[in-house]
């Protein structure tokens, strides 16, 4: 007298509830959606944010036609902030993706081949990790000039050691597993074993780390802009806005607060979404 076990409906709902994003995650997604819109449509929304007719001095927030007031050159804060989204976000994404690619390449080589390759890669990351980011940035700017993409390129290199180490440890954890040894028994090439078999299994770790790096790079890049390294004067950029806004801090506090809040909001949003995605990746395959 056995009755078949019915597929449980309640169990399904519990699963969904556990996986469903919380309020913070939804807010974070909204922030990121706004960022995407600002980047995609800044040409249409704010075509002359940086070249508007220059009035005299700054206007406080709430002035007619300028919701958040204007900066010391008379440029509208709201328009400037929207126009600055691209340089604030695109650079960090490039930095995170670039350092991830370097990390995957050298991390996999070091973690799988071990031996002298591991030693050389390990010492190189030690040296890079010992360099103070801000100081190097200032020196590089002094030598190569302070271009946005020069700074981005430099940060790609400076961010890569942590990626290398994370990928290396992930690969070292996978390498002794039987599925990797089975691949060796089939005499598959080492690049194939590394990049077809091992790296995809370390991917959740790599992607989570990459998302967290975007937020960190955003803050670093904005700090450099604030110090005058990175974007050219006159370009719309959140870090630059904060630096320029210092002189009119009391006339129009929004000139500093708005870009600062944007940096914090976007950095937090990326961290929260990164964490959430990381948890989901980790639970993948666990039935």
């Amino acid at each position, binding site marked *: 007298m056995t009755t078949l076990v*019915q597929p449980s409906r309640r*169990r399904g709902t519990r699963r969904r509830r556990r996986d469903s994003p919380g309020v913070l995650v939804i807010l974070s997604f909204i922030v990121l959606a706004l960022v995407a819109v600002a980047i995609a449509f800044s040409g249409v929304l704010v075509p002359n944010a940086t070249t508007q007719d220059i009035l005299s001095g700054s206007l406080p927030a709430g002035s007619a036609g300028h919701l958040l007031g204007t900066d010391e050159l008379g440029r509208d804060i709201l328009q400037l902030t929207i126009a600055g989204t691209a340089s604030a976000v695109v650079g960090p994404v490039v930095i995170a993706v670039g350092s991830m690619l370097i990390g995957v390449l050298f991390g996999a080589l070091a973690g799988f081949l071990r031996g002298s390759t591991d030693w050389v890669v390990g010492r190189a990351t030690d040296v890079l990790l010992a360099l103070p980011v801000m100081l190097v940035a200032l020196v590089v700017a002094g030598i190569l000039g302070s271009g946005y993409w020069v700074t981005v390129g430099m940060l790609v290199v400076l961010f890569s050691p942590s990626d290398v180490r994370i990928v290396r440890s992930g690969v070292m954890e996978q390498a002794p597993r039987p599925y990797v040894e089975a691949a060796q028994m089939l005499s598959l090439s080492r690049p194939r074993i590394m990049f077809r078999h091992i790296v995809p299994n370390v991917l959740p770790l790599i992607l989570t780390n990459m998302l967290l790096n975007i937020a960190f790079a955003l803050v670093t890049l904005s700090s450099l802009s604030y110090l005058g390294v990175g974007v050219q004067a006159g370009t719309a950029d959140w870090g630059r806005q904060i630096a320029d806004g210092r002189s009119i801090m009391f006339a129009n506090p929004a000139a500093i607060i708005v870009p600062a809040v944007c940096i914090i909001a976007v950095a937090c949003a990326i961290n929260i979404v990164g964490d959430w995605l990381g948890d989901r990746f980790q639970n993948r395959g666990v039935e």
Partner: protein
Amino acid sequence: MTDTVSVSGLSVRAGDRVLVEPLDARIEGAHCLGLIGESGSGKSLTARALVGLLPPGIVASGQVDFGGNRIDLSLPDRDAAWGEVRGRRAVLLLQDPFTSLSPVHRCGEQIAWSFAARDRAVSDSSTRLGRRSHRRYAAEVAALLAELNLDEAVAQSFPHELSGGQRQRVAIASAMATRPDLLIADEPTTALDASNQGEVLDLLRGLQRQRGMAMILISHDLGLIRGRADEVVVMRAGHVIERGETSSVLSSPRAEYTQALIAANPSIESLGHVHPDDAIASTSTAAHKATSLLEVRGVTKAFGGHTAVEAVSLEVGAGEILAVVGESGSGKSTLARCITGLEMPDAGEILLNGVPLPAGRRGRTPGQMQIVFQDPYSTLNPIFSVRQTLAEALRASGRHGADSEVDELLARVGLDASLAARRPSQLSGGQRQRVSIARALAPDPRLLICDESVSALDVLVQADILDMLAALRSSLGLTILFITHDLGVVSRLADRVAVMSGGALVETGPTVQVLNAPKHPYTMRLSAAARSNSLLANQGEAGGSHDGV
């Protein structure tokens, strides 16, 4: 303390899903109830429900009565009522002695914790256990260790300094120290070597009987229950399939499932009767003299200062199945890895068909030999589908990896072609192991090495896969080197046996000869242990000796 423990209406569910159907049991003091079933049968959930330690999301209902003290099993695990039950009324002895002891405390101290817990419960005074107060129990700890045939020095040792068998005895000591009414032993010897299992179980059973505790002994191995449990309950998928007095269930099982379990139990006694493969065995032994496929000459491998394999030489004839037997740490797996080239031997030569092979994997081809590993959960790449895994293996051996070739490979290991689209997480342990055998067969290897390939599987699945390997040997002319610690598996499959102990090869010979007339002391011990655990051995005699409890 000879109270009767009775369980009424114990059931376990996750949401609407019933994992264990209502179960009643009555265990008198000093008696033992055996709980038998394969993985997923609900036997471990039953054990955990009795001490209120179910995983989150899983709830129990029912009651258990410890000599008049009742507890409702549906109480949440943090409920204060459980504090009175756990340790004092019921103790759960876990399978893995490697993780169940604290690695940073000396064993004596850990046993003393249990004594302190007993005293706390009795006097109810807050006898807090200070940093050194475990010394108060030194004499009691020493006495208990002596009862478990452990050296006094064990009290001063950390768990990592002990062998698996010693650790499990320490765990038993700390379970016994509180003198609970009910001792629940969940696969207490599964993680131990065959030569240790019987001894540890007999110690456990002896102490439990002497102290008048009730015991529930959970196992997937019918052989271990025989002669140790008074009553047996056979479970499958949460249902009780059959229950009754142990000797009568084992000698005349009524349920078909129980009959299958008994038939599948790898018993070395089958050797005493006609060996079904005798004909093949004798011909291949004859063939072995003429052509030896694999020749290992003086292979030595050391890790750090420890020599894992010492000057081992052996030969495997074409078409032969050679079993390499030994307990864990005997170097049998390291030897297999040296043969495959996954490990570089420090010295020695590996010859295939008389031609020396390179020491590492470099310069070797997939068609020379393949290996099937033990753990079905990590043996397949989790992100590859079965088809991707097998197609890659086919391409690596110079074929196209076409769907039809994959399907043919799956058919060869008894799997349906519809499984090709699945990922490993969607397969059972047995199915995964079959896929990994299919992957190993893809390059048409001349030699197949199986490193404990069935020891992580349930008995019935194990039997199926062993039969499949025997069939593959006949149909493909495959030569198999089977690494195992299980003599039952050996007697079912192997033509010849090589016994390893402490890194050296201590005995080699035809299976029947080595198992029935072992020469080396280690082989004798192993054979005796396997015999005492095997199901059919001296059924009447063993049943009789335990009836008078």
